[in-house]
């Protein structure tokens, strides 16, 4: 039973005119898996979820949900899924209980069970406080999202499809939500989309990354990070390095520009990816991404010595999932900016995303 395929996409394609929102997507998700569905805006996350929930029909390919083909048995497919669309579009004028009752009726939950089911999801989603309000429209966006989640859980579905479920939650609510997803994911299949990579690393044992409608990666977050085969270095020097007395008679300042620094680092190895990096006032820093087979710390140190730069920091980092994500989705317009907006763990890393977008080296093939 544990290997049951609950969601399956085969060559799934959705075209709008000549534009393919999703292009031959193939993946399958088994019972009990919690899968993070990642990608920049416009990568095809929502489109995929809308096809899986029978909101839109695919242009070609097939998709099955709980063994039901979304095209041939849409009602059966919808009945096994709990779906929370992006931004939880709810009827604003309805009361919370009134709305949940409406959903319960359309979900064909027997009338005798309505009360118990509604009470259960109200408890699970922490909606107790929301019940004092007359209508959903009076609730904060975070609470509306919880109501959206409550309606998705109402019929105790074996499959949950959640489109950016945490986008309107505050950090505490997000943490609670992630814990909750981990708990329900034990006996359910959960597919959730997000831009927030930190969240995925915490809650999803498996990640699917889509870029421009295609599947760019599939695996555990740690594996994906390791698979990149890259190491990241941060190299920071004093912008006004003091020239040593042996080279100049009187003590003088040597000003180093960021361009000069980047140029010099690139001189070590042309395959290095060099990006500017946030630094303290008066210093300049670069982030260097290189093949993990070679340790570039020696080269960087020697460069500083040779140029007589005052070295302030040199460290080697493990490549983060966000790095892999950015690598894989290079070329998706301003992806990095959006990731930054979604709130990264390392704000300085996102700063350099723009440079990387402009850098047209698409290295996604070595990640496949």
């Amino acid at each position, binding site marked *: 039973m544990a290997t049951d395929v609950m969601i399956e996409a085969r060559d799934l394609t959705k075209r709008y005119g000549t534009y393919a929102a999703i292009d031959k997507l193939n993946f399958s998700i088994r019972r009990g898996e919690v899968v993070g569905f990642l990608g920049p805006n416009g990568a095809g996350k929502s489109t995929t979820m*809308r096809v899986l929930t029978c909101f839109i029909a695919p242009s070609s390919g097939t998709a099955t949900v709980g*063994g039901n083909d979304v095209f041939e*048995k849409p*009602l059966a497919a*919808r009945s096994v899924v709990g779906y929370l669309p992006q931004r939880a579009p709810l009827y604003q004028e*309805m009361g919370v209980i009134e709305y949940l009752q409406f959903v319960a009726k*359309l*979900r*064909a939950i027997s009338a005798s069970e309505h009360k118990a089911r509604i009470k259960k999801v109200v408890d699970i989603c922490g909606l107790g406080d929301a019940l004092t309000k007359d209508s959903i429209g009076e609730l904060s966006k975070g609470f509306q999202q919880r109501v959206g989640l409550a309606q998705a859980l109402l019929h*105790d579905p074996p499959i949950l499809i959640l489109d950016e479920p945490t986008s309107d939650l505050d950090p505490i609510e997000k943490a609670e939500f992630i814990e909750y997803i981990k708990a329900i994911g034990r006996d359910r299949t959960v597919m959730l989309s997000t831009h927030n990579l930190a969240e995925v690393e915490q809650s999803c044992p498996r990640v699917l990354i889509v870029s421009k409608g295609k599947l760019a990666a599939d695996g555990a977050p740690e594996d994906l990070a390791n698979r990149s085969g890259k190491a990241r270095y941060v190299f920071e020097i004093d912008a006004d390095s003091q020239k040593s007395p042996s080279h100049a008679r009187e003590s003088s300042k040597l000003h180093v520009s960021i361009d000069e620094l980047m140029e010099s680092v690139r001189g070590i190895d042309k395959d290095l990816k060099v990006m500017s990096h946030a630094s303290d006032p008066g210093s300049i820093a670069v982030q260097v991404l290189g093949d993990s087979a070679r340790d570039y710390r020696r080269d960087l140190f020697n460069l500083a010595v040779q140029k007589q730069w005052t070295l302030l920091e040199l460290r080697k980092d493990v490549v983060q999932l966000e790095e892999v994500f950015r690598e894989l989705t290079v070329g998706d317009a301003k992806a990095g900016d959006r990731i930054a907006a979604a709130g990264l763990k390392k704000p300085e890393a996102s700063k350099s995303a723009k440079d990387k977008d402009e850098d047209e080296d698409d290295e996604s093939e070595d990640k496949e």
Partner: protein
Amino acid sequence: MAEKATAGSSGALVGGIGAPIANVLTIAGREFRAYFNGPMGYIVVTMFTLFVGILFFFLFGTLVLRKTTLQPMFQSMSALLPLLCAALSMRSFSEERQRGTIELLITLPVRDADVVVGKFFGSLGVLLVTLLATVTYPIAMSRMGDLDSGPVIGGYIGILLGGGAYIAIGMAFSSYMRDQLSSFIVTVLFLYVLWFVDKTLIFLPQGVSSVFEYLCSDFHFKSIARGVIDTRNLVYFATVITAGLMIAARSLSSRRWS
């Protein structure tokens, strides 16, 4: 049942797929309450009743005629019905699309046709409440003298059927438009053309004019309001309602907005 079995076998599923009629009633009930949860329903009922009264007493001259007849009231209603029905139907799909709520509604295990028919009956319910509010006029009239109940009942049936047809047309327009206001304007224009067609008949040749007469909604209202319900009238309204709802269902199934 086969579908339900699949659903049941895949986990601790509580719900399933509801019967179409139950779904239609649930959707109709929500739609109906949505008008009265906000100010919309009250505004529509009050405005319609008020304007029918004004037209009835002043423009169509009941006070001048001094006869106990409700013919002028039904004429007023017939003239105002396009506005009422456009207001009732404009929100059916345009509003749901604008707010995105349609996505949650049609990803529930309901057929598109159930959604369309449910919404139709919800709006028809509001129309019924509005018409009930105007019953005060016949009651007042009946105190002034003998009122023949046949034409009154016929008149109300005619208005209800016509209103149903108008709502179905409005829903068809609403299903193609994202914006409620555009849906309202287009529906009002279309319905007034439909209502007005028989007033242009004298300019048309004989053969064409009978076709146009049949197409005209007001022609059928007048016919029913005489107290005689003809199959021809019923077929007209039934056809328009079916066509309107089918167009709306087709538009909904095509998901052209997504």
